[in-house]
């Protein structure tokens, strides 16, 4: 403690201080705004109602701490981009500069470059999903595909079915377009189709049938589970019987470490037009390219095309050209196989560490692919609060389960990522998490819990 001697260095400030540095400081930096905090009220009355629905949350602020260098973050969803070979990158960029420079710097068609759409048809065919070039629209990442799908079908107040938990990145799309989301539970075989049926009956009785069902059948984010073949067949049959539109999001289908590939819902629908299919190059190539796609019936694609014109006219021609030239020269499946080798080791490390570090009451999924494990703790634990102590005292971060629900559920769960962190760091991160959880379970016992 310093001495409390009255060494009072009070500063005097000149009354009108146009400092000598001012003149050449005119270039505005973000901090240079003329607005004071009091001025923000002028916007409050003007914000669109869908923007008003976007709230500040403890979770979001806590999540931002996970970027601190001393924190092991199992919160991200980052694919590995370090395995991509520099020589291949150089080679592709060289070809682009030499042969396609002007067109690569130019606008492109809204639906995407024709050559890329042809390649996308091939990529889908590799998963057994037959599509024609005219079924495909290129999007700016899979995220835009989700946004366009929701925007195209959902009016404010419309009901939408989604898995519970659902993709945390889809949550802002649902809230922006003011969808009423009804979550349908999953088990180890993915979405419970019997409960989808129940929900359909109930919603029909309430006079608010869902506009669509949003699902990630393979290696669900964040659930880490995969819909069984039987359930896929049942879901598509149900879609046909009940005229339920399925939005199938399939970013991870090729990121499989064990077992055999399963048919996509798009394939099982067999052209009947009840499936809108979304996918991306983010996991099989690189997320920084921001390139995804939609496959949909012509009438749907026309509407989505209009939506895309409003959003961004066209996706980056630079990225599209990169992918075309890359696919022309290299077998993307080799790269995916390498990535999958890396991810498999990381998943194994995470499952091993969870086995060692988590209390016996905890449960977690054992994914055969994808990037995430979903862990559920005893229900007296709140994972948003746990994140505060995990970040502050134990230097480890994860995504609290509430981020994957729109109805306030998920408080006892968390999403853990293994793709972005090496094995040794995963083990240490899960060890720290175990300590944070043990601290809370011990406290629970001390408070008379479980008696």
């Amino acid at each position, binding site marked *: 403690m310093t001495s*409390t001697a009255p*060494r009072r*260095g009070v500063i005097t400030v000149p009354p009108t*201080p146009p400092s000598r540095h001012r003149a050449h400081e005119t270039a505005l930096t973000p901090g240079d705004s003329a607005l*004071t*905090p009091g001025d923000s009220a002028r916007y409050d009355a003007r914000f669109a109602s869908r923007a008003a629905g976007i709230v500040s949350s403890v979770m*979001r602020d806590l999540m931002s701490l996970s970027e601190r260098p001393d924190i092991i973050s199992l919160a991200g969803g980052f694919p590995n981009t370090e395995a991509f070979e520099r020589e291949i990158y150089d080679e592709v960029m060289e070809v682009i500069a030499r042969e396609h420079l002007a067109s690569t710097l130019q606008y492109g068609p809204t639906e995407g470059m024709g050559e890329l759409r042809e390649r996308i048809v091939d990529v889908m065919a590799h998963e057994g999903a037959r599509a024609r070039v005219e079924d495909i629209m290129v999007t700016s990442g899979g995220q835009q595909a989700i946004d366009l799908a929701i925007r195209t079908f959902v009016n404010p107040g419309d009901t939408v079915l989604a898995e519970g938990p659902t993709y945390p990145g889809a949550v802002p799309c649902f809230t922006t377009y003011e969808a009423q989301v009804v979550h349908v539970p999953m088990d180890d075989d993915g979405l419970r189709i019997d409960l989808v049926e129940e929900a359909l009956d109930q919603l029909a009785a309430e006079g608010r049938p869902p506009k669509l069902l949003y699902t990630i059948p393979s290696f669900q984010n964040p659930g880490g589970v995969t819909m069984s073949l039987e359930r896929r067949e049942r879901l598509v049959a149900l879609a046909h019987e009940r005229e339920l539109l399925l939005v199938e999001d399939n970013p991870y289908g090729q990121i499989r470490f064990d077992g055999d590939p399963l048919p996509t819902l798009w394939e099982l629908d067999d052209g009947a037009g009840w499936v809108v299919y979304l996918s991306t190059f983010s996991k099989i190539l690189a997320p920084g390219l921001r390139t995804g796609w939609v496959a949909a019936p012509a009438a749907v694609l026309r509407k989505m095309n209009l939506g895309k014109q409003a959003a961004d006219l066209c996706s980056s021609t630079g990225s599209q050209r990169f992918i075309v030239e890359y696919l022309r020269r290299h077998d993307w499946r080799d790269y995916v196989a390498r990535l999958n080798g890396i991810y498999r080791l990381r998943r194994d490390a995470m499952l091993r560490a969870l086995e060692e570090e988590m209390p016996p009451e905890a449960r977690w999924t054992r994914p055969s692919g994808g990037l995430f494990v979903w862990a559920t703790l005893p229900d007296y634990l709140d994972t948003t609060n746990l994140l505060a102590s995990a970040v502050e005292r134990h230097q480890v971060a994860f995504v609290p389960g509430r981020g994957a629900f729109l109805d306030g559920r998920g408080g006892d769960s968390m999403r853990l990522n293994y793709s972005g962190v090496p094995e040794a760091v995963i083990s240490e991160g899960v060890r720290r998490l175990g300590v944070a959880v043990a601290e809370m379970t011990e406290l*629970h016992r001390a408070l008379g819990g479980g008696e």
Partner: protein
Amino acid sequence: MLVAVLKGGRSLEREVSLRSGANAEAALRRLGHDVLAVDVDQHLVRALRGERPDAAFIALHGKGGEDGTVQELLEILEVPYTGPGVLACERAWDKVVAKAHFATAGVPTPAAVAFSQDAFREMGAGEAIPEIRERLGLPLVVKPAKQGSALGITVARDASQIPGALMSALAYDERVLLEAFVEGRELAVSVIGTAAPWALPVVEAIPRDRDFYDFEARYTPGMTDFVAPARLPDAVAEEAAALALRCFDVLGCRGLGRVDLLLDADDRLWVLEVNSIPGMTDTSLLPKAAEAAGLGFDEVVERILADAALGA
């Protein structure tokens, strides 16, 4: 002059602090100062030594920034800083300590008891919950002793919610406060000045559809209605100001502070806490008080800076 704006840091209120800091920086630039924006990390001392700012404007919230830590460092480096000194920050930051000072000085504050995590783990304090409930009644506010922005605070409306509320609070601090719930209006009095501290007009925060003025209500535009100056009988407004100045004095604050109060149905005022580094975000109370005082944000920032000092 060259002013270092200290913001961000590693506390749970990092994001809030970055927003406060951005507003302070913008105001200081408009006032003609040179600004050194510092997102506080392990290079803080080196940055301050290298740039030798004339003063530090502290826009840090939470642990490290509001608890006297950064103030101690600025004392050592002899960089005058805004807001209260080391000891006053420590007293204000720990709600248990602050309430003890209030009680001694006869400042009304809701009755409370406090326990450390160890009391629950090692002495079975959990079994004393019935006695606590008996003494303080229900509902009961459970909050971390040291934390800002209402993080970890729960209003337990029946006894069964108390253990869960304790777990929440203990996730944010190792010590927890159980406080009698006062149903009332949320008021805040910002105080600026050192030689002659001045209470700015009372601001009332009216959260929409909420239990209390929680984190979301604090930082989501439109989720809370602010009335500045608060519509209060003159006598109550004057009493609130007098109470705020008294708290400022009791804790030994200087330069800046915000006193949070409740006004119950019988027009009685209760002090909840003093914030040594009040928020300066777009939805914060201090900027609203500045407007209501007819000063504007920039003028208040200038006055806060003018009181930058060293020592208690």
